[in-house]
């Protein structure tokens, strides 16, 4: 963090007093405190998250890595409000998800969270245009043509708007999914293995897009990946194992 240095000089230029003022610390846009998520599998309780503490500041691009079954996707679902935590707290943009009802979490998700999934999850009956516009419709403010155009042009989808998902390549589908996720200007973009179903070239394209959204537009991104190369696109990496964050490191 940048420090501000304030020095008061005497008339003879000797120092009367000085102080170093620190800029106020940024509030994390996402914060979890001793987060637990336990699933019941038959008669056995399975703890997918075992006391996870995570902080994400605005404008960060955090990559979460770990082996299969370590709880990455579960963490994403809980912090995105799709699943309810068993214990602990999740604060998203100052809102405590763990104290919210299902309807309240739905409302929060509608306005503050954008999701991108590994399998794109576009609606097959709608073309690209309507898949993107659907998010605006659900958001409740109706179709915003200006914002729609900005997002479509940013993601290079102008020529593909009238094509259905089955007529788009994997990379194009994921770009449509990203467009759908950001068209409502969410506070945080949660990406669950966004390149998992893509070839190398398409993966690079999507990751570059996400990095561009983060760097140029300040979009906060949390991305799950098991690909170390993909993780280099972020500003910070967190490693998970057995439901815990084991270490983290800043990349940029």
């Amino acid at each position, binding site marked *: 963090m940048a420090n501000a240095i304030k020095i008061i000089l005497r008339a003879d230029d000797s120092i009367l007093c000085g102080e170093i003022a620190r800029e106020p610390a940024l509030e994390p846009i996402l914060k979890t405190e001793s987060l637990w998520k336990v699933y019941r599998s038959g008669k056995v309780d399975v703890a997918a998250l075992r006391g996870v503490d995570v902080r994400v500041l605005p404008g960060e691009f955090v990559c979460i890595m770990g082996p299969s079954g370590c709880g990455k996707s579960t963490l994403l679902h809980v912090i995105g409000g799709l699943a309810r935590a068993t214990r602990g707290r999740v604060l998203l943009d100052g809102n405590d998800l763990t104290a919210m009802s299902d309807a309240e979490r*739905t409302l929060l*998700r509608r306005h503050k969270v954008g999701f991108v999934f590994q399998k794109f999850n576009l*609606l097959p*009956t709608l073309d690209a245009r309507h898949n993107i516009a*659907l998010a605006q419709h659900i958001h409740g403010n109706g179709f915003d043509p200006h914002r729609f155009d900005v997002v479509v042009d940013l993601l290079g989808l102008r020529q593909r708007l009238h094509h259905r998902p089955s007529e788009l390549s994997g990379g194009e589908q994921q770009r449509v999914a990203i467009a759908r996720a950001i068209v409502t200007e969410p506070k945080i973009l949660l990406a669950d293995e966004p390149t998992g179903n893509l070839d190398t070239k398409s993966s690079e394209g999507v990751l570059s897009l996400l990095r561009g959204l983060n760097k140029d537009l300040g979009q906060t991104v949390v991305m799950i990946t098991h690909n170390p190369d993909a993780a280099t696109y972020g500003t910070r990496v967190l490693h998970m194992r057995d439901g815990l964050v084991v270490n983290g490191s800043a990349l940029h």
Partner: protein
Amino acid sequence: MILRNILHRPARTLITVIGIAVEVTLVILVVGLTTGLLTESAKRTEGVGADIMVQPPSASIWAAFSGAPMPIRIAGKLKKLNYVQAVAPVLVQFNSVNGLDIVYGIQPDTFSGVSGGFVFHAGHGLEAPDDILVDDVYARAKDVRVGQTLHILGHDFHVAGVVEHGKGARLFVLMSTLQQMSGAIDKASIFFIKCDRSDHTPAAMDEIRQLLPGYEIRPLKDFISLMTSSNLPGLSAFISVMIGIAVAIGFLVVFLSMYTTIIERTREIGVLKSLGASKSYIVEIVLSETMLLCILGSGFGVGLSFLMRWVFVTAFPSMTILILPRWVMFSGMIALAGGLLGASYPAWIASRKDPVEALVYE
């Protein structure tokens, strides 16, 4: 999105629409058939030309179910009353061999005195004991000509003439013949009475009530208004049962269709929830699709009703099916109600799906 979802599975949509159409057609045709039957029967009874109809106590308004318990000599007493110009006793029999028909046993002279006589298309009146007159509708429907033999009520009759329709029944034989066949010697089912003036009808009815207390005395003017399903309790129940069956068909068709739809679109529901769609949004989508299917099905059903009516009337010219506008509307409302009811449980299930489980559903 609603329209696209429906068009996405054209075969399932078509089957659902057809199912709802069948429901609508069933209601329209059942009501149309019963109303047509009643109305047509009432018209023909009115067409006898009488002012009053006398039946035994507690007799059904539907003459087809009349017995023959009245002594024919009552006609003489009725003829002597003030305001009575002519009396025609009629013996009614219901024939169920080679079709369903009402047969009138008449005395040609008294019947002519009330009805004004038959208008002949071919042949002549009843002369021999085995003579039978058929109306033109019956003749066309059964391809009957003068001179042919008709097997009615277990007896061979000789077709003596073809007459204009609209005078009570479609088949007429001599009363004496019918009395012999049915063992109802000197009995009649109905007395048709013609007044000297139609405005004397109420007064004549009062006199008849004094002469024959407890007997069913009905004016034939506006007889059609009396021939409603509410005056025939069994018919009301029948219509209600058929409507119930139709609603059940619509309910089940829509329930199964929407249930399989939401199962198939589980992941889509998860996606909508991840975008922040509320439970009511999900329910609204399912019910909106259902409404559109019901509207399409109702429209198709109305068209199918007209087509089926044409088929039935072409095959059975003596059949009357009335497609009533208010029943067309009512059947559409029934289809919509049944459909929305059928879709409500699938809609509820869809709204309550866990988004995480839905998103990973294959």
